[in-house]
């Protein structure tokens, strides 16, 4: 994996993990009964971001690959369901509107990460 891309992804996932964790901790600890599904989804996304950041740092490539794949599916699913079934979401999650509240970074980041990770796993990829 290219070291520059790897470290910048760690920074990006660290920042996003911090933002999502802060948001979900406040939501879950103060208003969980109002909108359990959105707040638990926010909590799960925060845990996923932290897991991916750790996996990238430790060099757990398959964990990072699966994590970013799950993240992308989550963003697309929650984003789409937010428009198709708005009644299911009494409040916003990190992934609502495909991450629009976070400048669409939650949508763009897993795509970038998957490109970096998959290019690194290609047989002709240059070793670190």
């Amino acid at each position, binding site marked *: 994996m290219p070291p520059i891309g790897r*470290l910048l992804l760690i920074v*990006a996932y660290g920042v996003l993990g911090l933002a999502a964790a802060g948001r979900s901790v406040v939501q879950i600890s103060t208003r969980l009964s109002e909108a359990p599904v959105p707040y638990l989804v926010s909590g799960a996304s925060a845990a996923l971001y932290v897991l991916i950041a750790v996996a990238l740092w430790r*060099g757990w490539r398959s964990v990072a690959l699966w994590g970013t794949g799950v993240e992308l599916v989550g963003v697309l699913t929650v984003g789409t369901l937010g428009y198709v079934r708005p009644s299911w979401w009494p409040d916003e999650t990190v992934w609502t509107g495909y991450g629009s509240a976070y400048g669409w970074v939650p949508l763009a980041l897993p795509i970038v990460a998957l490109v970096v990770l998959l290019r690194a796993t290609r047989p002709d990829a240059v070793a670190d």
Partner: protein
Amino acid sequence: MELYGGVIYPAVLVACAILALAGVGTMVQVRAHRVLEKAVTGFWIVTAIQVLSVLIVLIRGNDAGLVLTLGYLLAAVLLLPLLGIGRLGEPDAAALDPDPNRPVLQPDQIARVDGGAAVIVAIAAAVLAWRVFVILGS
């Protein structure tokens, strides 16, 4: 509150802009890493002043939610160590770690990682400062 809204908050945004520009400059031209290092030092100072000023505003009495405001301040502080993440790839630092997957960077790569991290942190810090500004009710 006037001091924070009129001086500190704009100063934080200017510091974020300088940090982001220095980060972009470093990614384009590695020689700008020295400028980035000075910008990072200045950013630590500006963030410390921001934290102190917000604490003073809260102590003097403000309707802002304490947990939320302190949470954003904590996040602003937690971002700062990411500005030096390139150092973790220095050969000396990597040699002390038994992890074989630890990235080892050349000096130009360290500069570019620091530049990219500076851009990400600058954007995140600007958003945090804006959120604190909104919460404090300006």
